[in-house]
């Protein structure tokens, strides 16, 4: 069996993640920040240590400006819906996931002006196009760091520099890069970093967050929900300080404990080492797929310009059929279709049928890549449009 759906959620998880969660459930168990007894403090320490780990990994200066959310979608919604008001202008790319597009389309129906900057069919974005799209009332630029469909990296640092010049905030969706590609909120000029815990950071589902930079005036970013925080309990008004103002209700401390173990594993391996491993896998997978007749690979075809997520199609076969056969016949689990990203598929020319997506991870081996390539090559030649080639030596 080969798990090639890491772009949706990573598996396996690093050693220590399940153990950390079990430890929390069996040995800690209390509600962080809700009491002062030893176990509540222990629980609080785990959640706080994870904030520091996030800061260390992303070079963020202040652990108290790390907000936990249940996933990256919630983090993106907090930033977008919390900051954008009627009359504001927001710029995004044509490669975004629906976690950005749907809140933006909703905001656009409510008086926010939206500009979607087109990317090339390889998913590349020209920073000059973002600059050209900016207007005097532009408040925010939101970009994914890498496409969840074809892995293409977007030039966030260059766009970040432009945003700084213009006094515009930059929100980055790091769902596909956090833990797999270097993210430096200071060097990349990222004001708001939305991340997920359950992909390359190795944590469980139900974990994610938003790193809020110093240029963001939190008094102007409304919380998504309000409620108990364990702090300022004498007041019926929501606290106005970070991170409590955005963290109402009992947090997923079990999950954050697992995430902390995942982040520590990533840091012990080193993001650069993970990246080098994934670049090598991606290069081999792209080359291998391209050499199979009837297979079209999307994106830049250059592993250095993308993450370890590769999309392709097989001529005359629907992506769903390819996915079913790879699962049934070879035990290869991948994701087919539109990957919650209609805009990206329109950009690369694969809407509405979509693609077959192989999402690899730090745990993927070269042997698995070779097995998968052989499986794709075995898909019936007649269905790969090769009938006409029969008898000519192939």
């Amino acid at each position, binding site marked *: 069996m080969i798990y090639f759906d890491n772009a949706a959620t990573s598996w396996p998880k690093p050693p220590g993640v399940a153990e950390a969660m079990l430890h929390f459930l069996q040995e800690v168990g209390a509600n*962080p*920040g*809700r*009491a*002062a007894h030893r176990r509540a*403090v222990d629980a*609080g*320490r785990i*959640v*706080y240590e994870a*904030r*520091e780990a996030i800061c260390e990994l992303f070079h963020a200066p202040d*652990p*108290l400006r790390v907000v936990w959310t249940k996933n990256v979608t919630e983090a993106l919604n907090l930033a977008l819906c919390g900051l954008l008001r009627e009359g504001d202008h927001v710029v995004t790319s044509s490669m975004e996931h629906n976690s950005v597009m749907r809140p933006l389309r909703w905001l656009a129906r409510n008086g926010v002006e939206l500009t979607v900057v087109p990317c090339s069919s390889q998913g590349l974005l020209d920073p000059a196009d973002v600059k050209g799209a900016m207007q005097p009332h532009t408040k925010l630029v939101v970009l994914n760091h890498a496409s969840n469909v074809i892995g293409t990296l977007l030039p966030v640092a260059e766009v970040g520099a432009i945003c700084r010049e213009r006094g515009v905030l930059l929100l980055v969706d790091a769902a596909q890069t956090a833990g797999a590609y270097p993210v430096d909120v200071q060097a990349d000029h990222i004001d708001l970093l939305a991340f997920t815990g359950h992909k390359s950071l190795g944590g469980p589902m139900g974990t994610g967050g938003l790193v809020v930079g110093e240029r963001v005036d939190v008094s102007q970013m409304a919380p998504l929900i309000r409620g108990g*925080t*364990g*702090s*300022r*309990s*004498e007041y019926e008004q929501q*606290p106005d*300080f970070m*991170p*409590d103002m955005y963290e109402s209700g009992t947090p997923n401390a079990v999950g954050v404990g697992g995430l902390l173990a995942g982040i520590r594993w990533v840091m012990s391996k080193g993001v650069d080492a993970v990246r080098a491993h994934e670049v090598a896998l991606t290069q081999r997978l792209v080359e291998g797929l391209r050499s199979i007749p009837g297979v079209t690979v999307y994106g830049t075809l250059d592993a250095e310009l993308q993450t370890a997520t590769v999309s392709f199609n097989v001529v005359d076969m629907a992506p769903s059929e390819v996915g079913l056969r790879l699962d049934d016949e070879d035990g290869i689990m991948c994701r087919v279709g539109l990957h919650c990203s209609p805009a990206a598929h329109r950009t690369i020319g694969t809407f509405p049928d979509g693609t077959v997506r192989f999402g690899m991870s730090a745990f993927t081996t070269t042997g698995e890549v070779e097995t998968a390539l052989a499986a794709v090559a075995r898909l019936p030649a007649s269905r790969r449009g090769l009938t006409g080639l029969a008898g000519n030596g192939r």
Partner: protein
Amino acid sequence: MTNSRCAVILFHSTSYALRAEKLLDRAGIATKLIPVPRFLSSSCGVCVRIAQCDREAAQQALECAQLETEGIHDI
């Protein structure tokens, strides 16, 4: 550290107290997280107890890290 010659530092929330605990530990100052004494605040959270003689050094360490407090009190 005995209760008679202690001071407590109050914070917005537990996250701040935990950050303070680490900062003070790094500065070589002994701490203990305790419930906020009722006569100081009705908060249900924790505060950081230190020895009175560490008061100045603690305040300096927290200011240096720009960690906001809600006051420091001898108890």
